[in-house]
């Protein structure tokens, strides 16, 4: 008959117990899981990226509803346990009792609240779970100031997250330097400098006297008498094991619930696991020993003998951009010697503590690549006498190995621990790779290595490279910019597949590391969104380079150039007169005839732009988009109207194309040419799209270049009629708009996807061609219009100064 198992608390430790149990013996237990939080097990290590906005709750769920259902776990989430009745072997929840044969207490820890006046005011939060995180995110949305009390791991992650959300953050720390339990003073200083560099204020030796406020928090008063304004106060001074139910049930409790090496409490049917336990006077807070404990509990429940042994621990701090590592004991003491390496310009600090001929401690900041190797030496008690002189330089310098970073990984022994969170050693990963796990995802799935906090991902990739040699391709794709690890191609794909329709959605869902991007990614995202969602996405002028925002080209002296459109290179005496009048009226210093058959007025003052546009509009002219990543010009020859060699009306086709395509935004600028005969006076064969007329029709070439690169167009196809030529060119434009990387001209894009791929979609598949033409037309319903006229009417005021303080006040 199945035994009844009740688990109190759905955290990471008990989650791992359930994984072991339901994997090893799915039929052994009827399981009931209580959790006071209204949700199941999620990866608490990842709360800081949720706070900073790099991840969402959805990203960090470990066990979802389907998981519990599949494993037959009865979930009682959002329900606190009132008491344990050990005599009758039942757990009494708020909504009723459940009988048990075996019980696991996994109540975790509770934040320590310092007993100062004002600690209960609204706006004072702790940082333990998702609700706390959500409360901080909500508070940060209003901006303002935050005070974080406590400069340990949790406090600093909270501070970094809130600062990334745009709050002004001050960290108060009682001790002389940050993270004094994990870092020495020098590393603490570097950490402080890095955090201050991000605008976070750090106050050490700062004791909190009171939290002030009427009906919510307003300020924090220090013992020194200083007050700090605060819209949010985060208490992160420490945690203590949550032992209430165990104490009430008269189990033996010291600081934590006391257990033996089999993780049994003083009642052998009651196990305890995780942050709530105490074993031989030790408490446990890091995830690696908790997972060990979970294995021991699961084995104990299944009657298999197992023993938990507390091991040395290493710490890696995950505040984006801060790279620090500590392991072992690094306090100064008699008989201990230090080896220290510093590189101030790169912000690197390494210190090794040696006792006798053994390494007993290591602290590293700025470059922690060798951390695991040092940690191995500490754990194994390796004799280091022989390599003492070069020890600080790490494994690459031992035994005459080269400086190749891979050799450091290759030199690790099979039992070296790669993934500290999940206790996965090198040998296990190499075994998995040999068994067919040839990429990161497969290794992660089979061994759990790099599956929790993720800081060993690079090591696992290096192991793949060492083990597979040339068969493994290190991912080399370039991210868009420093705000993300994703490539342009990834982002385009995800915008389409996840239906992301705003920049905020992209930043949030794709884990941008900056609050609102940078000058590199913003214009790219703005284009991708308006190209893929023309009706839903609103073009954001503030994400455009100045030229596209002001619809004029900025010159080196801050003035602008103005270039009206001349359809197909044709103009009239009236237009020329209007241009001349405008040049006079606005004192245009330079008038230039361009290579695209238009006239450029250079040196126009920014504040004159709306007026000169209004004058040109009155003469029937519109923007030439000479500033845009979009359709520029269609250059033509005079064709059959005048030329004795011409075969078709090249001028007329050019005008039709320009009237059809103008106003459309593209990944980079697009220039067209239409020549009336193969003599090619319009130089159509070095354009992005070029048409050469012949007697039988229209030869359409694409992917030419005459700029940084010089390249002849490649033949897309030949069209029989003008209409067919226009449809083919429109479809090509749309395919380019939907697929190319921002700032790739068509010739670069075609080189990547291949002309055959383009032909299949534009030429061969008529349905695909028609669909592309339709989608282009939908987009043009928004964008085929004169931006000059619109700005003259609606936005003229932004071109003028907001105020002029050089004028004397009238009064």
């Amino acid at each position, binding site marked *: 008959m199945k035994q009844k198992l009740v688990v109190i608390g759905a955290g990471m430790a008990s989650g791992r117990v359930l994984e072991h149990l339901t994997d090893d013996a799915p039929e052994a237990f009827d399981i009931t899981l209580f959790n006071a939080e209204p949700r199941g097990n999620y990866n608490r290590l990842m709360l800081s990226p949720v706070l900073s906005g790099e991840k969402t709750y959805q990203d960090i769920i470990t066990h979802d509803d389907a998981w519990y259902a599949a494993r037959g776990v009865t979930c009682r989430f959002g329900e606190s346990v009132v008491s344990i009745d050990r005599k009758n072997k039942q757990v009494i929840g708020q909504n009723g009792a459940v009988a048990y044969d075996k019980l696991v207490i996994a109540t975790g820890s509770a934040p320590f609240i310092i007993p100062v006046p004002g600690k209960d005011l609204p706006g004072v939060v702790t940082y333990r779970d998702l609700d706390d995180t959500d409360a901080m995110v909500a508070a940060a949305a209003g901006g303002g100031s935050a005070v974080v009390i406590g400069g340990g791991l949790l406090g600093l992650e909270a501070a970094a997250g809130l600062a990334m959300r745009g709050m002004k953050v001050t960290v108060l720390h009682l001790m002389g330097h940050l993270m004094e339990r994990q870092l020495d003073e020098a590393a603490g200083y570097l950490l402080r400098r890095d955090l201050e560099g991000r605008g976070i204020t750090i106050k050490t030796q700062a004791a909190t006297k009171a939290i002030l406020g009427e009906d919510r928090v307003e300020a924090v008063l220090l013992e020194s008498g200083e007050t700090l304004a605060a819209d949010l106060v985060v208490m992160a001074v420490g945690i203590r094991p949550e032992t209430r139910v165990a104490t009430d049930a008269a189990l033996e409790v010291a600081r934590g619930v006391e257990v033996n090496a089999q993780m049994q409490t003083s009642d052998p049917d009651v196990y305890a696991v995780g942050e709530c336990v105490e074993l031989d006077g030790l408490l446990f807070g890091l995830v690696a020993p908790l997972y060990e404990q979970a294995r021991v509990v699961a084995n104990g429940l299944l009657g298999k003998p197992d023993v938990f042994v507390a091991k040395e621990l290493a710490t890696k701090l995950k505040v984006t951009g801060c790279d620090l590592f500590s392991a072992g004991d690094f306090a100064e003491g008699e008989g201990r010697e230090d080896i220290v390496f510093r590189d101030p310009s790169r912000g690197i600090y390494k210190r090794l503590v040696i006792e006798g001929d053994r390494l007993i401690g290591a602290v590293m900041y700025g470059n922690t690549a060798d951390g695991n190797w040092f940690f191995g030496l500490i754990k194994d008690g390796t004799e280091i006498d022989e390599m003492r002189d070069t020890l600080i330089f790490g494994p690459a310098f031992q035994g005459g190995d080269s400086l190749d970073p891979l050799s450091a990984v290759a030199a690790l022994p099979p039992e070296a621990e790669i993934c500290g969170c999940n206790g996965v050693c090198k040998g296990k990963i190499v075994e998995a790779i040999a068994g067919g796990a040839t990429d990161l995802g497969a290794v992660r799935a089979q061994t759990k290595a790099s599956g929790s906090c993720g800081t060993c991902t690079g090591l696992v990739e290096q192991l793949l490279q060492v083990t597979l040699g040339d068969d493994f391709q290190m991912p080399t794709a370039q991210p868009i910019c420093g705000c993300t690890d994703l490539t342009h191609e990834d982002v385009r794909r995800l915008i389409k597949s996840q239906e992301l329709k705003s920049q905020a959605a992209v930043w949030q869902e794709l884990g941008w590391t900056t*609050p*609102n*991007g940078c*000058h590199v990614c*913003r214009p790219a995202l703005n284009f991708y969104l308006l190209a893929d969602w023309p009706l839903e996405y609103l073009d954001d002028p503030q994400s455009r380079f*100045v030229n596209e925002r002001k619809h004029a080209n900025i010159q080196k002296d*801050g003035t602008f150039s103005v270039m009206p459109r001349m359809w197909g290179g044709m103009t009239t005496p009236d237009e020329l007169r209007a241009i001349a009048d405008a040049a006079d009226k606005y004192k245009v210093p330079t008038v230039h005839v361009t290579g695209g058959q238009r006239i450029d007025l250079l040196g126009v003052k920014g504040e004159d732009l709306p007026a000169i546009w209004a004058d040109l509009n009155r003469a029937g002219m519109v923007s030439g988009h000479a500033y845009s990543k979009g359709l520029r010009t269609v250059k033509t020859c005079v064709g059959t109207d005048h030329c004795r060699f011409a075969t078709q009306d090249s001028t007329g086709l050019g005008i039709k194309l320009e009237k059809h395509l103008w106003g459309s935004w593209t990944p980079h600028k697009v220039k067209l040419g239409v020549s009336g005969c193969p003599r090619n006076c319009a130089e159509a064969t070095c354009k992005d799209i070029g048409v050469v007329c012949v007697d039988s029709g229209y030869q359409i070439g694409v992917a030419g270049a005459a700029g940084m690169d010089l390249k002849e167009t490649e033949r897309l196809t030949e069209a029989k009629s003008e209409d067919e030529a226009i449809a083919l060119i429109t479809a090509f434009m749309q395919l380019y708009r939907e697929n190319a990387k921002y700032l790739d001209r068509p010739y670069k894009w075609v080189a990547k996807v291949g002309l055959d791929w383009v032909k299949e979609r534009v030429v061969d598949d008529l349905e695909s061609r028609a669909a592309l033409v339709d989608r282009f037309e939908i987009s043009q319903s928004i964008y085929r219009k004169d931006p000059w006229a619109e700005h003259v009417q609606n936005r003229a005021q932004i071109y003028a100064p*907001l105020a002029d303080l050089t004028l004397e006040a009238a009064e």
Partner: protein
Amino acid sequence: MNWLDIAAIDDIPLRGARVIKTPLGCVALFRTAMAEVFAVSDRCPHKGGPLSEGIVHGQRVTCPLHNWVFDLNTGQAQGADEGQIATYPVRVEGGRVLLDTVALGKKSAA
């Protein structure tokens, strides 16, 4: 100090800027995504580019001419570039933007 009400915060585009003319030259008023306002010199120390025309990201602006990036709090150029732009006191009260005209080179009102 002589605080002068210059404009409503909404007169400045979100993640954008507007220019005011002062006896010290053009000053750019930046508004970030967090609705903070910064007042700094409009002139890039590199080649004189108009910073008010740059892309605003976080509390930074990128010069439109050669992509120098400045921190709007300190006026310091970021990364490998070296230079600084002047920053001026600014307050936002009840949706209005106030500037200290003394700091902007005007004699205080009699």
